[in-house]
């Protein structure tokens, strides 16, 4: 299975080739006029030009920075809520009511209403990102904390740990892998939320750039930016995976099973 290992190592270029190839095929078939569905070389040229004048990099930094800061904030808040829920059944129920009600609301629905109250700046982004990104870490956190085995807890108690110590030293580490699954999911959501907010109400970042290029009828640039957004997802997932390996490496090692 030598080729399989190579295929796995080269999976990013393979995926890129597949995607670009499929795009080029649709282009070659001519289903849609070239004006609206430009070829990959055209898109690449346009993207290269944006890369050279520096606009795309600064916009990318803004968007990616926002998504990352938002993700960290939302993850911390979500885990904090999960811990509060673990400590008090009443608050747990109360927070659950709120999450049930807020979760089904799409960010795109919030943005137009929220701009009137929060303006078009940082407050808006913070609000939108946290509102949609907080739930996966929170829900996974609650489930994971509740799922810590009674054997582990009793062992901890036997060692005379206080409730706080039990939380920090037994429960949280045991729950961390599941929490990270939630954070990974949240990473995607936070990126989407930032771009949606930028497209609907922003004044900078990749989302706004897409909007602006579309209004200048620069279709190749628009698609170039769209590919960049997709690439962001791969990047953000990679970062979260790295962090997970750093924080919960022991768990991954233990989970590696012989084939």
């Amino acid at each position: 299975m030598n080729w399989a290992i190579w295929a796995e190592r080269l999976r990013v270029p393979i995926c890129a080739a597949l995607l670009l190839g499929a795009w080029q095929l649709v282009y070659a078939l001519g289903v849609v006029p070239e004006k609206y569905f430009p070829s990959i070389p055209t898109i690449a040229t346009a993207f290269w030009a944006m890369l050279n004048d520096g606009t795309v990099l600064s916009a990318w930094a803004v968007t990616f920075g926002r998504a990352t800061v938002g993700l960290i904030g939302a993850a911390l808040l979500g885990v904090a809520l999960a811990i509060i829920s673990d400590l008090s059944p009443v608050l747990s129920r109360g927070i659950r009511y709120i999450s049930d009600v807020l979760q089904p609301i799409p960010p795109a629905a919030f943005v137009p209403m929220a701009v009137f109250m929060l303006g078009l700046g940082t407050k808006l982004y913070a609000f939108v990102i946290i509102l949609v990104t907080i739930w996966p870490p929170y829900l996974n956190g609650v489930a994971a904390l509740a799922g810590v085995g009674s054997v582990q807890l009793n062992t901890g108690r036997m060692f005379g740990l206080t409730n706080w110590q039990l939380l920090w030293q037994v429960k949280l580490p045991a729950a961390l892998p599941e929490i990270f699954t939630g954070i990974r999911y949240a990473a995607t959501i936070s990126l989407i939320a930032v771009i949606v907010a930028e497209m609907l109400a922003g004044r900078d970042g990749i989302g706004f750039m897409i909007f602006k290029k579309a209004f200048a009828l620069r279709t190749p640039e628009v698609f170039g930016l769209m590919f960049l957004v997709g690439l962001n997802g791969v990047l953000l997932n990679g970062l979260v995976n790295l962090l997970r390996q750093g924080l919960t490496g022991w768990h991954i090692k233990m989970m590696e099973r012989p084939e």
Partner: protein
Amino acid sequence: MAKFIRRAVLGGVLSGVAIATVLASTIAASAEDTKVRIAYFLADSMLPALYAQEKGYFAAAGIAPEFIAVQGGPAVVAAIASGEADIGYSSPVPPINGRLNGVPIKMFLQLSQEVDPDKKYTWLVASGASGIKDMAGVKGKKIAFNANGGLCELMWCDHLAATGLTIDDVRPVVLPFPEQEAALEQGNIDATCAINPFYSSISGNTALAPVTIAAGTLHDLTQPLMNDALFASDDWLAANGEAVVKVAQVMDKARHELLGNRAALEGAAVQFMELTPEAAKAFNLPIVKESMAITGADVQRILDAMIATGMQPGPLNGADFVAEVKY
């Protein structure tokens, strides 16, 4: 234990909110008097402002403008309502709707107008494949406009009414300008309301065989019709009378320069609107009246059209929406 944590957490959250509020208010208070934040929806007639900024004319008049590009008229009003911006620029319909719904804003300058016979800057255009030849032909067809409650919706309503139809006789879909040409060509819509640069792109597309079925926001354009407005909140206007006059003077100077200098105009179109140099050659500022002043009568015409087409219940007084400025 749990009780203590609950209290601590609550306390933390509350004090956080309190600190944030205090911080926000200090930041707001430290803003300088001459700083003017202008939220705008990028359109042709906004070019003079961007050009004046580039040339340093605002600075020379003691004004430090900050330009905030946003995605549409309602977003501009939102920027004013939330205190994010001082002056807004959009088509006149969003500030009218805003004021009618409790946002205390007034329009004080107009930058562009339309008038018969050929100074018209909005178009209704159909694809050849739709078989539409004139306004009467749109009955039962799929038509598009860029946003609810905007100039384009008003345009459709007004021109439909002039042919004895209403918006209920067509199938409307709200579609952003950039997507309209593709939708026309792919047969997803039959006709749309377009502005430049989209209209010139559509009308130059031979594969589409476009048919222009109407021009000008209202069917009756014997008198000039205001096409856009600068507006601000009542409070800000009351407190910054001097700054408003200065902004008007700077805009006036920039408009004259651009109207008199073709090269400068094309350069600005390429720089600020990201037009290609070829597209910029056909570019013109949509200016009919030399004066930028707005009167109640200007707004009244739009209000009357909105009432006649059922977009707003009447009666309404145009003067309520205007703060006149002498510069």
